[in-house]
């Protein structure tokens, strides 16, 4: 751990906020990707049986 001096809180806060936001957008992207993929697969099997 480097010596951050009196600015430690600021720097860590900046990194933490960034980590949070990046994790948020990655998480949302991933979740929606999986949901849509699963829903599409279900719909395609249904279409396959009927069609």
């Amino acid at each position, binding site marked *: *751990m*480097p*010596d*951050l*001096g*009196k*600015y*430690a809180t*600021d*720097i860590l*806060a*900046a*990194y933490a*906020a*960034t980590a949070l*936001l*990046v994790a*948020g*957008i*990655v998480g*949302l*992207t*991933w979740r*929606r*990707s999986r949901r*849509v*993929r699963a*829903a*599409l697969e279900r*719909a*395609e099997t*249904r*279409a396959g049986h*009927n069609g």
Partner: protein
Amino acid sequence: MSIWEYANPRKFMSWTGPFVVLFSVLAALFVGVGLIWGFFFTPDAEGFGSTVKIIYIHVPAATVAINAWAMMLVASLIWIVRRHHVSALAARAAAPVGMTMTAIALITGAIWGQPMWGTWWAWDPRLTSFLILFLFYLGYIALWQAIDNPDTAADLTSVLCLVGSVFALLSRYAVLFWNQGLHQGASLSLDKQEHVADVFWQPLVISLAGFSFLFVALLLVRTRTEIRARRLHALEARERMVNA
């Protein structure tokens, strides 16, 4: 065989599959190396103390935020001129990522501004421009979500993106005129006199590459999701037709 064939949805799905993995790995690698190098192995800068370490997220996030809008502009133009669906969907997919990057740039800027300028927020031209950019992202995303018909939504958001780009540029210069800033000059300029010293520059460039790869990876995943959502939408519509 022209380059446009890669924009066929089916083809797009097949050729981008491997790239998702590639860019995700590259993003993790470069962001990791850039930030660890920047955080642990760079000296403090004169005048900034240790807060200079914020630059490794602040500048890349800001760069990606602007370029994401530029990419949306190009995608919107392609949609208007050539009507490739993938292009419209890519613009839609990029917007939330760009907005997140804008938010990161604003938040890290505020946190950095506190110790350096003695205030969380100053109505400095660059900060203000980014705030305006954030509002443009908000409006763009809100318009996408408000319209049900996907083609109508693509058309209208493309027009908004074009007009918005012009007004975003105008705002940039209006804001410059309106207030002189506290902000640093360009950190990444190729002009050796202007940009930051090499010790900071090298990890910064790596981090910048990392954020760019992250953007591309997210963009690909989100665009693929949008394409699947469109197909799902079409399948469900057909099911309803058959059942009715």
